[in-house]
């Protein structure tokens, strides 16, 4: 699947296109097929995303969206070396999901 990610212009937070707007949770990411660049052009011009790009992802065995590249998985969660600063500080499996 193809999903879109970027950063919020004002806050810098990592965001994922959920089909209608932007979510900070990668689980909400929508499959955009071939339409990613078009969506990005609109959203970037409207300042709703900064530095956005299209990436490959798949649905893991648990059905959850998993970006293909480790860099985007780290973006989805947070720094692997500071679990307390990630989006899932209480989840012991979060780190292994990234790697």
């Amino acid at each position: 699947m193809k999903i879109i990610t970027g950063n919020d212009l004002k806050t810098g937070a990592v965001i994922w296109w959920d089909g209608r707007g932007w979510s900070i949770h990668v689980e909400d990411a929508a499959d955009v097929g071939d339409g990613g660049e078009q969506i990005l052009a609109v959203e970037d011009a409207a300042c709703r995303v900064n530095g956005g790009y299209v990436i490959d992802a798949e649905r893991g065995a648990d059905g959850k969206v998993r970006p293909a590249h480790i860099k985007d998985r780290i973006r989805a969660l947070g720094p692997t070396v500071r679990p307390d600063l990630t989006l899932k500080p209480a989840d012991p499996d979060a780190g292994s999901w990234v790697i």
Partner: protein
Amino acid sequence: MYKYDHYDQAMVDARVADFRDQTRRRIAGLMTDDQFKPLRLKNGLYLQLHAYMLRVAIPYGTLNSRQMRKLAHIARTYDRGYGHFTTRQNIQYNWIKLEQAPDILAELATVEMHAIQTSGESIRNVSADHYAGAAADEVIDPRPWAEMLRQMTTFMPEFSYLPRKFKICVIASDEDRAAMRWHDFGLRIVRNGAGEIGFEVYPGGGMGRTPFIAYKARDFLPANQIFSYLQAVLRVWNRHARRDNIHKQRMKILVHELGEEEFTRQVEETFQHVLTLGSDFPQAEYDRIAAYFEPPAFETGLSEEIDRSDPDFAVWVDQQVAEHKAPGYAIANVSLKPVGGIAGDISAEQMEVVADLAERYSFDELRASHAQNLVLPHVRKQDLYAVWQALVDAGLANANLDLVTDIIACPGLDYCSLANARSIPVAQRIAERFEDEARQKDIGELKIKISGCINACGHHHAGHIGILGVDRKGTENYQLLLGGSGDENTTQAKITGPGFDEAGIVDAVERAVEHYRVIREPGERFLDTYRRVGMDGFKEAIYG
């Protein structure tokens, strides 16, 4: 240390207003990111993996307690409770919001701090020896010249859009504690036969994907001509660097392509012309700045004794305390490398502790070193025990300066959008492997430097052991290098062979270290042994 006059303050305040307006226009959509990016980089604001990152300048690594407390306040108020000291003596915050960045810069301006030109294709923070003003071997304190260079290079209009970044370093001793020759423009302060102050000039160094060590262009440049000379160097590079390939635009590439002789010739020709413009700062301005760097009022008649009866304190003294030029005083190094911690990271609470210690015990002065550690430069020997106790309580008393666990690591893929691999976990695993204090002491001086990509912010080219993280078909892979150095015998580390995964690189480092221990001669550090025997034996030991 230097104090702003109203001119300096007005310039920093103007810069805040400038950036506030630019940010407003960006958020309102009046500027594209392509147009805004160079402007925000000129104020130290990157867009990184998780948020914006702000790099605050700590000019030549010197700051006072008031500034450190403000840095702690910023960590608490605008970030997530911590900061990161970098390999260029600056501090970074990882969780910044663009909409708050102008306010942060405004707060920094109230304590004479800024983020001017700390990123992008700018003339960056001028770095200097972190023992400046305390070391016995310096010709003079290099920091007045570093401060002059800072002012000279702030908002230089001709160099508004340089081909790439430009890094300056000033030292004043034979021993190079600041990796001077790894800079685009390195200076060593010397005296000539007549006792006059001048500079050995070393242009053309730099790390990144094509490392070069600076060459010596001048044995002696009269000190009062340094600005003309620097302008000449910058002009030659600004005019002739390639502009078509971002990877070939650093000045070291131009030096390499023209050759040292031709580069020097062009610089000298331009220098003779620039001299006629009369832009050098006068002696009176140097004297005004130098007055701020007069030695503090050191007491005399102090005890030289250090009570070593507490064995843990004795261990710390042996490793962390360096000799001071003033009798009765010492230089105290503060480790930001706890085993299993994150190199260079410091919490807001720890910043407050260090600020208090500086104010109370070090004439209100602190330093940041390019090795991502801190320094209390002027501590009375009789106060070392109290300092140590406070550091112990704050988790800052690790006695590992220049040892195998004193690792330099860039933030890597955990934080940085440029990275190909994570570097911090590798540093942690290595430190844990070598944690035993007796083992560390036995190994002795060993500078490991880890970069998460070829941009080399972890300075792996200058590591006795260097590690470079790469992306190999979507997975993290680590190359091992040996024999680099940032000291006065500057050398570039060489790659050993095929790369390793995370577990493998730790084992490979251990095999290299054990090989050193087997073949070393008395008094040899790891680097010395490598330089004596070369790569072959090490390569065999690593790869079997």
